Every structure is written in C-alpha cells, then in structure tokens.
C-alpha cells in the first residue's frame, strides 16, 4: 500500500472587485458620503492628526523636564503646553478614538446592518467634530490656553486672559459629535440587529460601545451646560462659579467631573470591547463569562456616574460626602475586575497565539490593571491627600488611558486593519512596534508613580534636583514610546500599497464582520445575514457563526 503525501497549497487571496473604497472616487464622494465605513476612515485621519499633535506637546513637556531648571520654556508657556496636550488628547483623540473609528466601522457590520440608523447624522457628527477642532486649533494659534484641561474656575472664568472661550466653544461643539455618535449606536443596536441576533448573542464590542453611548448621551450635555455657564460668567459677569461675583468654584468642579469622570469610561469601555474580541479570537476559545462581561460594561457606565467627587477630596467638599464618594469609587473597581478575571480565564487552557493584536491585548490587561489598582489609592480618602495633584495621578491616568486605551485602540486597529483595507500589515514590524510601545510606556510612566509618591507636584516646569534621575528616565522612555507610535503609522501606510491581500477572514475569527469581504461592499452584506448560534463559537469544530 502506498501513501500519498498531501501538501497543503496556500490559498492565494484576491481583493474583491467592488468594495466601499473603490465604489466611488473623488473628494466629493468622501466628503458627502453617508457610508459608516468611509466616515470611520475620515475620523481615523482626523484623530490621527490630533494624536500626533498632542504627542508633540507631550514631547516638548518631557524635553523641558529633562533638567530641574525651567530652562526651555517660561512657566506660562509650559502651562499652555500641558493644557493643549490634555485637551487635544482627551477631547480630540481619546473620546472619539474607538467609538468614532472602530465603532463606526464595525457596529453596523457586527449587528448585520447595512449602515447606522441615521447615516446623515453620522456624517454631520464628523463635520461638527471638525468645526469643534477648528475652534480648538484657533485657540492654539491665537496664543493657547493655560487653564489645564479641567478649566477650573475662577482661574478660567475671571483671571486668565487667554482664549478660554474659543477653546470652550470648540469642546462644546465637539461634544455634540460625541452625542450624535452615541445616539446612532443606541438606536442601531435596538432597531437594526439581524434576524436571530438577540441581545445575548451581541458581540462584546457592541455591548461595550452601547454602554459608552449611554454615557455619551446622558453625560455630555452636562459638560455643554457647564461650558456655557463658564462662557456666560466670563463674558457677562453673571456670578455662577466666581466667588467675587457670588458664585461657587466647587460647583464648577461638581458639574465638570459629573461628565469628565464618566468620560474616562467613554474612553476605556470601547477599548475593553476591543480586548474582549481579541482575547477570545487569539485564544481560540469561547469567551469566559459572556454575560458577566456584557453586564459589567453597563455596570461601569452606571457606577461611573456616581464617583465623580473623588477628584475633589481636597477641594473643600464635606467629609461625609467624601466618604460616600470614596466608597462608591471602590465599588466601580468590581465590574472592571470582573472583566480582567474573565479575560484571564478565557486564555486559560486556550490555544494562545501571540499575534500583534494579542500582544497589545496582553499589554492592555497588565497596564490597565496597574492603572486601575492605583486608582484605588486615589479613591482612598487618606492616601489621596498625600498624592493629590502629584505625578502619581499623572502616572495612574496615563496607565489607564495610554497603557489601557491607546493599547486597545492600536490592538483593535491591527485586528481589523485587514477588514478595513483588505491588506495585511507586516507582522514582524508590528510585533516589534507593540513591544517597543510596551517598554517605552513603562519607562515613561512608572518613574512618575515614584516621583509622585515622593512629592513632585504636577504642572510645574521646574523641580528640585533630587527628582532629576527619575525625570530623565521618564523622558528617555517618552522617546522610545514615540518610536512605538510612529512605526505603525509607517507600516500601515506601507501596507495600503504593498501589504499582502488579507482575504475575508485572516484570523479565522467568528462574528458577522468576518462573513463579508475585506474590504466590505458599500452595503456590507449581499444578503441580510441570519444568526443561528452564540458568539465566539471557537472550539472543537469552529462551526460557522452564521447561515445566510
């Protein structure tokens, strides 16, 4: 008897003939598009610009902090640098990053819809975002604002002569872009799910974006109102926040943080959704505790609204109130921990592949956990007084926002890049970038925990000499981190022309978005998909998620 050796011939993937990128050509077809995928791409270009602009400010800050003397910038200029860094990164990169780019692209695909519920409002949200960004840039070129991204009164409402109103109006306008995106997601998830796609079968990425959308719709108007009151006080001297006019500065903090603390969850929740998708795909295992992960997103969205005053423990709020807020802040750690434990359990006995998205996801879990646990230090009434307004807070926030959110965003971008563009990025370069980012990030921000604990305050351009070594380490780390961020920009652009054709499902992932072509056609699916089984059907037979 003879045996025949069968050699597997690798399948050569080809790009689909017609897809959303080549359906129409010309600037007009992009600027007037109602296709959620093209709008996602418009957002991608816009927020990438703001990410690198914010990064430039960060680079200048770290350059100044190389030496203890404030020898590169005046203190006023330094104040403007950290304000513009914070405003750029938070309002024009972090908040729109996952929802407006990945969410816009993927939510309709994941629910089996042809588009979002309100395509015109979706396009309008991008234009509104651009208008808000134009105001922010106008404030920047007309001298910059030096209040810090928190705009605390009466500093912002009375004392400073910088263009606070212009920047405030910019953020107010951009806030409506966020509201429109959230509204679109909520209605789409409620009304446009494919047949068979019950709430219990929704991908966790959709659950996370849905939870973030609730915060966008319910919280952002409060920021808008607060900024309008600030403008009214500044312009017409109506006493609201300024004690000299009969106002209360702590009221501003209450209103500001009522939005801005949940805004942290607008930023991190969609990132958590990305991580859920990546972990389960690259562990080749059904996600552990689907229901708990789904409902922990909703729990974070709700709990996130009742913890805001932990930012104000030293602002003169009542001790009893501080006790309540401290307790509630500890409570919000529970649903976050539920997610981390479930992701870890998903990997347990899974067939883990360390592809680039997975490297970012693993980085996320570690860094977010450190960021989250150090958040508990800040929620503890006594300890917060010691580390308040020090570099400890800066480090904590960046561990959550950069170590968590930016890692998730980059992981998601790598995971769905083949779907968005139809091409694969160079894997070896991408793995190296993920590793450089992880190392650079820790080198930048871990020394800041120590600096803060030793008592170095944030927002000063000069510091005692004993802090220099740690500051030099941090600045060195920032330059490594910059390499980690610039590399993906280069190889993503490279892959658009020279990348290997990806095929419909290069990761062998489940989910409706992988059932269509890469890149998808303008209307997403040739026929409406019908969902017949639970999500994340990885395992023995890896049966197809959907029957058409």
């Amino acid at each position, binding site marked *: 008897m003879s045996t025949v050796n069968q050699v597997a011939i690798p399948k050569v993937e080809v790009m689909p003939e017609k897809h959303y990128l080549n359906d129409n050509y010309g600037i007009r077809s992009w600027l007037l598009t109602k296709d959620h995928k093209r709008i996602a791409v418009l957002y991608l270009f816009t927020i990438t610009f703001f990410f690198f602009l914010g990064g430039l400010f960060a680079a200048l800050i770290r350059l100044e902090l190389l030496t203890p003397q404030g020898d590169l910038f005046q203190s006023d200029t330094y104040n403007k640098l950290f304000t513009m860094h914070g405003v750029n990164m938070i309002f024009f990169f972090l908040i729109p990053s996952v929802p407006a780019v990945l969410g816009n692209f993927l939510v309709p695909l994941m629910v089996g819809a042809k588009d979002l519920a309100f395509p015109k409002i979706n396009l309008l949200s991008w234009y509104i975002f651009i208008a808000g960004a134009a105001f922010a840039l106008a404030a920047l070129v007309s001298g910059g604002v030096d209040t810090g991204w928190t705009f605390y009164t009466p500093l912002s409402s009375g004392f400073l002569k910088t263009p606070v109103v212009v920047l405030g109006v910019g953020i107010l306008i951009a806030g409506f872009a966020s509201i429109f995106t959230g509204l679109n997601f909520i209605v789409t998830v*409620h009304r446009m799910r494919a047949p068979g796609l019950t709430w219990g079968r929704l991908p966790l990425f959709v659950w996370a974006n849905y939870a973030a959308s609730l915060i966008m719709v*319910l*919280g952002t108007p*409060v920021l808008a109102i607060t900024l309008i009151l600030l403008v009214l006080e500044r312009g017409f001297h109506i006493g609201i926040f300024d004690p000299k006019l009969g106002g209360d500065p*702590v*009221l501003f903090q*209450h*209103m500001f943080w*009522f939005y801005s603390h949940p805004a942290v969850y607008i930023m991190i929740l969609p990132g958590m959704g990305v991580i859920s998708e990546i972990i389960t795909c690259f562990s080749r295992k059904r996600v552990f505790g689907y229901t708990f992960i789904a409902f922990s997103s909703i729990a974070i969205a709700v709990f996130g*609204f*009742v913890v*805001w*005053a932990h930012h104000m423990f030293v602002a003169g*709020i*009542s*001790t*009893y*109130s501080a006790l*309540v*807020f401290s307790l509630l802040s500890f409570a919000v750690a529970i649903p976050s921990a539920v997610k981390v434990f479930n992701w870890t359990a998903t990997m347990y006995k899974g067939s883990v592949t360390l592809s680039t998205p997975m490297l970012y996801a693993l980085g996320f879990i570690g860094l977010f956990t450190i960021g989250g646990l150090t958040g508990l230090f800040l929620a503890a009434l006594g300890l917060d007084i010691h580390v308040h307004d020090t570099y400890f807070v800066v480090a904590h926030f960046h561990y959550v926002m950069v170590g968590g959110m930016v890692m998730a965003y980059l992981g998601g971008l790598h995971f769905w890049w083949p779907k968005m563009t139809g091409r694969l990025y160079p894997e070896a370069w991408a793995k190296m970038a993920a590793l450089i980012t992880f190392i650079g990030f820790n080198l930048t921000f871990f020394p800041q925990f120590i600096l803060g604990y030793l008592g170095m305050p944030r927002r000063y351009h000069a510091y005692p000499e004993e802090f220099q070594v740690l500051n030099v380490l941090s600045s060195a780390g920032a330059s490594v981190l910059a390499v980690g961020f610039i590399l993906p920009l280069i190889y993503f652009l490279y892959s658009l022309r020279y990348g290997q054709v990806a095929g419909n499902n290069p990761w062998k992932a489940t989910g409706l978005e992988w059932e269509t072509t890469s890149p998808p056609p303008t209307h997403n699916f040739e026929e409406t998909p019908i969902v017949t089984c639970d999500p994340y059907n990885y395992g023995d037979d890896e049966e197809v998620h959907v029957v058409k």
Partner: protein
Amino acid sequence: MSEHAHPSRALYLVIFAALIVGTCLTWGIAFKDLGIWNPVVALTIAVIKATLVILYFMHVRYSNKLTIVTVCAGFFWLLILISLSLSDYLSRSWSLQ
C-alpha cells in the same frame, strides 16, 4: 420613523399660549420680593413649561414606552447630579463628632 399620534393644531396653540403665560408670569414675579420663594416659584413655572414642551411639542405623550423610559433616564441622571452634589452642600456643616 414609526408613525404615532400627533397633537391637534388647537392643542398646539393651547400649549403655546400656556408657555407664553408662564413666561409672563415668571417675568412679573421677578419684580416682586418674595424672599426665599422667588427662585422656588420661578423654578416651578420653568419645570411646568419644560414638562409641557416635552409632553406635547416633543410628542413624548404619544410615544412608545422605550422613548418614555429614555426620557425618564435623562431625568434620573439629572437627579443623580443634583442629589449627590447636594450631599456635599447639605452636609458641609455637619460635625464629625
């Protein structure tokens, strides 16, 4: 968009008239010194006006239950903002002893 009942033109005019009356009332009362009751009266009129706008001009009275729940959620969140902020203001003078 789902079809639902709309208020009649006559009802719109009645609501509009009620809003104008409310505005005039607020303006008139602002000139009377009622002490602590000035803001209370002004806010009461404002709440009644807002309720009329939401129920009739925004058609919530004629909407499905999901829309009503959504509107209620908005007010619930406003309640969180007010009550937890007040938890600070009202307890500032309390002694720790």
